[in-house]
């Protein structure tokens, strides 16, 4: 027998779990369909930044959306902890982007000035070498300075994912794992979704399946052009705290490990690691903190993140199919809070916020075929 829900969310990663939790906590009976561990699982390869200072520099709607999420993150962290006992290890000490030459320094300054021009709540300060070195003992000689913004923070992405799913379950949501979707049909005002684990009926349908989103969208006749972008990460042994602020290229977790990353490669569906990229990541990290040469790397992995043609998220609501939504983005951790709170509310109410209209998929339609 086909079970009927207020909403079906296809995708059990960072975006799908946030939306599903958001819908269920608003009282909508929701089922989340997860493909299983054959999926590419971008949510397992997150760096864990809740990051504002590089987002939407020349695209105000994205900057605004990111800002809203960063502002709501503390509430999300508290709600997950209270509801599920899962600690996302969120903190917002501000974040630093280090610059290794003068050109990088002036480029960062000019970017952040542009961001502030349309996002006035965003504050930052360019720090010279001397100030930065006082804040960060052991800073390498090659660092010329950096930008600091109090808006930035970080969290443990694996605990976030677990917390979102635990919260979803705690509110009565249902997770179906191994439920690869094979067909989507309209039945009157409802959607009928055929999955490997059976059929599901729902009033609303949200496609948030990362790199699988386009294939799902094509089942109902539209496009969400996403492609894989590989990021490689290294993680060191646990060491005593030396860095209390996250950087986009490295951060120390609350448990002492140091995560090194910030690589982007267009290599198709290859999740592997390469010595060349790992070398570059480690090299840059040891230029910032030379003492990291003594830290042992205990694991390295690659993961496929979601990229769109213009690098911004895609939120689509095809006007010809009421109740259908699609969401795909690169920064699932940063945007988790706004997905849980604002996006879920708009899906419940049937209309995406106006500020998301510039992030629709239709702008790419000329390139889709």
């Amino acid at each position, binding site marked *: 027998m086909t079970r009927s829900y207020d909403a079906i969310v296809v995708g059990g990663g960072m975006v799908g779990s946030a939306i599903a939790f958001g819908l269920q906590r608003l009282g909508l009976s929701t089922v989340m369909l997860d493909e299983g561990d054959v999926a590419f699982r971008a949510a397992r390869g997150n760096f864990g930044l809740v990051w504002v200072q590089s987002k939407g520099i020349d695209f105000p709607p994205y900057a605004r959306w990111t800002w809203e999420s960063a502002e709501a993150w503390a509430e999300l962290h508290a709600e997950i902890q209270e509801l599920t006992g899962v600690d996302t290890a969120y903190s917002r000490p501000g974040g630093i982007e280090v610059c290794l030459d003068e050109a990088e320094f002036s480029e960062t300054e000019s970017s952040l000035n542009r961001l502030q021009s349309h996002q006035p709540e965003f504050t930052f300060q360019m720090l010279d070498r001397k100030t930065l070195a006082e804040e960060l003992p052991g800073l390498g000689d090659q660092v010329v300075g950096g930008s600091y913004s109090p808006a930035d923070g970080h969290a443990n992405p694996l605990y976030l994912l677990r917390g979102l799913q635990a919260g979803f379950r705690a509110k009565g949501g249902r997770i179906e794992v191994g439920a690869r979707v094979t067909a989507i049909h309209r039945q009157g005002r409802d959607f009928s979704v055929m999955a490997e684990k059976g059929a599901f009926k729902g009033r609303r349908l949200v496609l948030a399946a990362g790199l699988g989103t386009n294939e799902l969208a094509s089942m109902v006749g539209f496009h969400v052009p996403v492609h894989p972008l590989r990021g490689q990460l290294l993680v060191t042994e646990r060491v005593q705290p030396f860095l209390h602020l996250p950087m986009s290229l490295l951060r120390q977790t609350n448990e002492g490990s140091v995560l090194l990353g910030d690589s982007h490669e267009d290599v198709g569906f290859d999740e592997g690691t390469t010595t060349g990229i790992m070398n570059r990541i480690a090299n840059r990290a040891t230029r910032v903190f030379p003492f990291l040469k003594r*830290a042992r790397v205990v694991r390295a992995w690659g993961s496929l993140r979601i990229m769109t043609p213009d690098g911004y998220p895609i939120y689509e609501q095809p006007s010809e199919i009421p109740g259908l939504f699609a969401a795909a983005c690169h920064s699932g951790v940063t945007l988790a809070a706004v997905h849980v709170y604002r996006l879920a509310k708009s899906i419940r109410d049937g209309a995406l916020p106006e500020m998301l209209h510039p992030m629709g998929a239709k702008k790419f339609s000329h390139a889709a075929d």
Partner: protein
Amino acid sequence: MRRIETAEAPTIVIEFEGRDIQARQGDSVAAALIAVGEVALCTSPVSGAERGPFCMMGVCFDCMVEIDGVPNRQACLTPVESGMRVRRQRGAAALGPEASAGGVIPKVLDIDS
């Protein structure tokens, strides 16, 4: 635990927490210590609880020791060498600088005003 005598290997001496321990050539540091009853080799950097060799194959990171002044060595993957000085790894290793209290930035910035 006791040794299963298979092949004869020369006995060597290593130091553990300042006292001499007899080991066999070819032992890992973890095996040599277990053989003399030393199983708590480190404390967890997260909880502070005592930890000992669990997987004996390099994946659990619960057998960390300091060897000849180098912290966070995996005892199960390190062969014994005569004269080696081994100590328990207590919590996370220090890499270099202590974390600053994080006080500089708020002092130099006046960004909330």
